[in-house]
């Protein structure tokens, strides 16, 4: 595009400044994350004294063994896994058929349904009335309280609807109808196989949401055994409630105990983010695709 015109001096200076600024941004975002990694692998005392900056010092995985040996954390991890898998499955079962029906031009009463869905995006009963519904349905302290109150996001449904509208041609549906293909059959054997991209996007959006959420659990779950990982972590990370058995048994020095507590926090951050860290680089483009579809007004 600019092959035959030599960039001016001003433009070269501009490029240099851009590169410099963006490198600064890169470091500002990446360093805190990198620091958590190296701090989790270093001798906690050196971390606390500010001697760990660029790479781990006195490499130690003590904190990881403590974290992985703690029943609350492991239990929380498993609970989170359960809520995420079940919750996401419910999300898909509710969202996809709804989005498909809404994408069909021959759906009568579409205006009513659209209004019905959109209203919920702008007005809500709020924390207390929703809490009372969950309580009155006797869902408190059950797995259902973690997965049903967020069974569908209208925003995600609209993304999926937009996707269906733009990828499933009307002619295809008409051809199938002439061949006597029923709606559910067409949906399962034609629409879904053509919609892998949107399914991946929804799984990611919903899945990450479930994995990261603590709000529902804090409101609806009081039974420690049912705590998701985020709630267990909240106790440790923001309220400093380190399970006593994690640091008392073999650590006698009060000072070292305090350091180890910090270490455990770093390790916990890494372990809780692990599922996301693993999938993130591979699926990044789907997240972004979702934003693109979502930004189309329709």
């Amino acid at each position, binding site marked *: 595009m600019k092959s035959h*015109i030599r960039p001016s001096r001003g433009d070269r200076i501009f490029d240099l400044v851009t590169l410099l600024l963006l490198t600064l941004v890169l470091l500002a975002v990446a360093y805190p994350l990198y620091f958590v990694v190296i701090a989790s692998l270093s001798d906690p005392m050196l971390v606390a004294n500010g001697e760990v900056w660029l790479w781990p010092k006195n490499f130690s995985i003590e904190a990881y063994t403590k974290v992985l040996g703690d029943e609350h954390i492991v239990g929380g991890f498993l609970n989170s896994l359960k809520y995420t898998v079940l919750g996401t499955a419910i999300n898909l079962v509710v969202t996809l058929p709804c989005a498909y029906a809404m994408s069909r031009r021959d759906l009568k009463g579409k205006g009513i349904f659209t209004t019905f869905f959109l209203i919920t995006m702008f*007005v809500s*009963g709020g924390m*207390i009335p929703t809490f009372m519904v969950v309580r009155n349905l006797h869902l408190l302290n059950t797995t259902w309280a973690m997965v049903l109150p967020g069974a569908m996001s209208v925003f995600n449904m609209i993304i999926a609807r937009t996707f269906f509208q733009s990828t499933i041609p009307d002619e295809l549906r008409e051809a199938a109808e002439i061949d006597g293909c029923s709606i559910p059959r067409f949906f399962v054997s034609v629409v879904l196989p053509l919609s892998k991209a949107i399914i991946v996007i929804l799984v990611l959006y919903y899945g990450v949401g479930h994995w990261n959420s*603590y*709000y529902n659990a804090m409101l609806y779950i009081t039974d420690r055994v049912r705590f998701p990982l985020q709630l267990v972590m909240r106790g440790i990370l923001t309220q400093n409630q380190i399970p006593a058995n994690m640091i008392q048994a073999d650590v006698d020095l009060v000072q070292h105990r305090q350091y180890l507590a910090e270490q455990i926090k*770093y390790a916990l951050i890494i372990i809780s983010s692990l599922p996301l860290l693993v999938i993130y680089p591979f699926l990044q483009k789907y997240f972004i695709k979702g934003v693109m579809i979502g930004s189309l007004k329709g």
Partner: protein
Amino acid sequence: MKAAQAAAPSGGKKHRTGPGLNPKRFWSYMKGHYWLYLFLLPAVLYLIIFHYVPLYGVQIAFRDYSPKFGITGSPWVGLEHFKVFINSYFFGETFRNTLLLSLFTLVFSFPVPIILALLLNQMPGKRYRRVVQTVTYAPYFISMVVICGMIRIFLAPSSGLVNNLITMFGGQSINFMGEPGWFRTIYVVSGVWQNTGWNAIIYLAALSGVSPELHEAAVVDGASKLQRIWHIDIPSILPTAMILLILNAGSLMSVGFEKAFLLQTGSNISTSEIISTYVYKAGIESQRYSYAAAVGLFNSVINLVLLLVMNAVSKKTTKSSLW
């Protein structure tokens, strides 16, 4: 089937049950399409139970809820709870905190993604650009609990990263989490850190839609990069930016509960107590359901009014609106 389809495109209004409806056509339409309504059923049921029933339950804000009588049986008290809230010490504090917190968030976190997107778009070197993008999106996926945990660890008075840096350069260590004056800065800066990369995506998308010919023509005419950004890039993302600005301004009073709650400490409560955290404490912790519902409703009504006003403003000035 054919008749139903012919009716469908114009169908927005006419087809509802009513005297004008031809039952024969209705049934033949339903015969072919009842599955569509079954497809909608789970979503509709879900929204009724978890959104519309709570909306109906908002009436406890005007009643004195007691478990014995239930939501619809408790005695009416009118605006009593609203009066108590507005006359209480908490009103001024939580209202101001909520407004200031989101005002600062808006002022700082709105322009930064635009600048990032403009720079990324002009950046030479495709591969490095992708690295920067990938890394800056990443924090968006970190959970709020972890973000707030990291903030607390990094800002710890004696052992935290930030204070180690400060003392290394000879400064005095600061008790960030303990001082009310720091709360908003921490909240806003960490929000910018977490969300800028993600929020830039939408602007990058708008920028990638700019026709390359515009830039080529400008280059031929001798326009510098800065001039091209100013005259081509910025005008092309302006509509997107306006809509987002309006949306954000419309949600000025709906600061999320999660982050403020996690960053609260006993000593920064005078700036960190916002309406939503107060609702949680009054409602869930102290079980003053009616009062808390009233405070929450007060907040939602302000939100809705703000959104409607901003949407109307947007319709007038930019001809783009939410609905």
